[in-house]
């Protein structure tokens, strides 16, 4: 009546093999990668994010941006990511070195953001879009992140950081909208999202 140990062993071995194939092997293969400038001038230096951008990444994580936005460009001929201008090439493992967590995403309720920094380099645009997405993108279903901004009464002069809202969206003249540190950090992070540099791993 020694069924339990044998069932246990069978289940263990089955599991162990998938574990080795799906977990250990990729880790061994991928984890030791360092960011390399394998092609001279074009390659982006994928140094780990510091300071404001790292903080911004944290804001991205805390607010679940990943549930609507992916950060991966599919290869030419598989979907139309490249034709849509989401990147000049597919993204590869090296594009994500050093990231914790990796924010590949699995939904595109909104567009892919792998190269949003290259595609939309205007901080002003990003602040307006985050404050109320429908200012820059009519028909968007993205929620407002107005809680990352401060609506306050103008004291003396308008702040230089204040959002320049279009006439239809503007507040009363006495008020201004100013980004909080979290908003500035998030935009700094978004502006660094750029995986357009050529990499050997990505092919010609």
């Amino acid at each position, binding site marked *: *009546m*020694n*069924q339990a140990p*044998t*069932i246990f*062993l*069978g*289940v*263990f*071995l*089955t599991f*162990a*093999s*998938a574990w*080795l*194939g799906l977990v*250990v*092997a*990729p880790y*061994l*293969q991928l984890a030791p990668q360092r960011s390399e400038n394998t092609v001279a001038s074009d390659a982006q230096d994928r140094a780990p994010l510091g300071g404001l951008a790292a903080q911004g990444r944290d804001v991205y994580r805390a607010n679940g941006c990943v549930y609507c936005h992916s950060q991966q460009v599919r290869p030419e001929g598989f979907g139309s990511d490249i034709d849509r201008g989401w990147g000049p090439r597919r993204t590869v493992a090296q594009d994500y070195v050093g990231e914790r967590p990796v924010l590949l995403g699995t939904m595109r309720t909104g567009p892919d953001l792998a190269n949003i920094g290259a595609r939309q380099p205007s901080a002003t645009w990003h602040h307006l879009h985050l404050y109320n997405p429908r200012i820059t993108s009519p028909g968007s279903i993205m929620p407002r992140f107005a809680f990352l901004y401060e609506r306050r009464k103008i004291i003396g002069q308008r702040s230089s950081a204040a959002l320049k809202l279009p006439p239809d969206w503007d507040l009363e003249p006495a008020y201004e909208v100013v980004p909080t540190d979290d908003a500035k950090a998030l935009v700094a992070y978004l502006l660094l999202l750029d995986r357009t540099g050529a990499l050997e791993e990505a092919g010609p």
Partner: protein
Amino acid sequence: MTVAYLVIFASFLLFALSVVLALSWALRNGQMKNFGRGATAIFDPDEPIGTVTDSFPSTQTQAERSEGPLHD
């Protein structure tokens, strides 16, 4: 790449081994002998094959039912 291939190969070996182990246990233990017994193991003389059992408390008397299930 070599590491990956070695790992995959080892995994397939482990797979095959586990299936062999499980089957050998089943044969040794007599699990493969009486499939009729296996399939009928869940029935009882008072909940036999042929009787629908979505019929909880109906065969008990009122007194037994109000007592509820037996306590430890």
